[in-house]
């Protein structure tokens, strides 16, 4: 018996060329699904003590400490990101600290695939698959948003701005689909403005 080896969902895909954005899979992140009650001071303190960061309590935000990040998923749910190699260690530390506290922590590193989009065309490209106004000022660096993207469940994390770096999380089984969708729609630079004033079409 050999140990299970991590194989990324998109490892067989070639590096795309000729796209309006830079596209790559991020395979180095471990992910922990953490649930608990934000108004339970014991829970918040135990998490802080283990991860050295405050869990974000405002909707659609994130916090970071070193190479650990916490993304807000719901009023009682967070996605903790860490170096993949440290996942086990952090998970057991979390479980240790959360003993006896109403909570839940589980390793979901292989549940989702992270696709990183880089460049100023990242937002217009993502706009083609969602109903959000990604061009508005609401979507600043640090913003996390779960959404329906190209008909599938996904999560957006605006990592940084100017130039845009955006992580798109999709469930692993949808990785190929999402990748193909981005390839198909990322070829042409097209200005999409779903919100606000639109130029009238040429007659």
């Amino acid at each position, binding site marked *: 018996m050999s140990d299970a080896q991590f194989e990324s969902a998109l490892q067989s895909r070639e590096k795309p060329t000729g796209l309006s954005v830079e596209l790559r899979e991020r395979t180095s992140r471990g992910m922990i699904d953490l649930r608990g009650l934000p108004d339970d001071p014991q829970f918040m303190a135990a998490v802080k003590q283990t991860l050295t960061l405050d869990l974000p309590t405002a*909707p*659609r935000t994130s916090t970071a400490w070193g190479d650990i990040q916490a993304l807000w*998923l*719901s*009023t009682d749910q967070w996605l903790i990101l860490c170096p993949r190699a440290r996942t086990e260690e952090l998970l057991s530390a979390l479980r240790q600290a959360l003993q006896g506290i109403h909570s839940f922590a589980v390793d979901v590193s292989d549940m989702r695939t992270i696709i990183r989009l880089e460049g100023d065309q990242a937002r217009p490209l993502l706009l083609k698959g969602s*109903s959000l106004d990604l061009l508005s000022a609401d979507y600043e660096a640090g913003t996390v*948003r*779960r959404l*329906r993207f190209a008909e599938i469940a996904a999560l957006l994390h605006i990592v940084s701005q100017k130039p845009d770096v955006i992580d798109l999380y999709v469930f692993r089984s949808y990785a190929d689909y999402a990748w193909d969708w981005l390839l198909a729609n990322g070829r042409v630079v097209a200005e999409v403005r779903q919100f606000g004033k639109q130029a009238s079409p040429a007659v």
Partner: protein
Amino acid sequence: MLIVHCPVCGAEGDETDFHYGGEAHVARPATRDPADVSDAQQRDYLFMRHNPKGLHFERWRCDRGCGKWFHAARDTMTMEFKATYGIGELPPRELMKAATGEWAEFFKDKLAKGRKA
């Protein structure tokens, strides 16, 4: 397209980001012994729903956002969302007052009492 606002996380989006969950405020017949629930009561609980023209009260889920259930007051003619409110709450008083038909009947004693569901 319906524009829906989640009262839990504040997310706003079209109806494809949300999920419709049937009629609001359907109460299970309360009893300690299932045998005490009459067939008529059970039928009403399972199947009988309002179908008003105008103001209606529904359950929705912030499907692709925070994942939480909430309540919505929607006009079935104009499709306009009049309000969204917590899953454990009653509608704003002015909407309970504006309700007609079976809904008006349903909210009558709740209007007389406080706001807790």
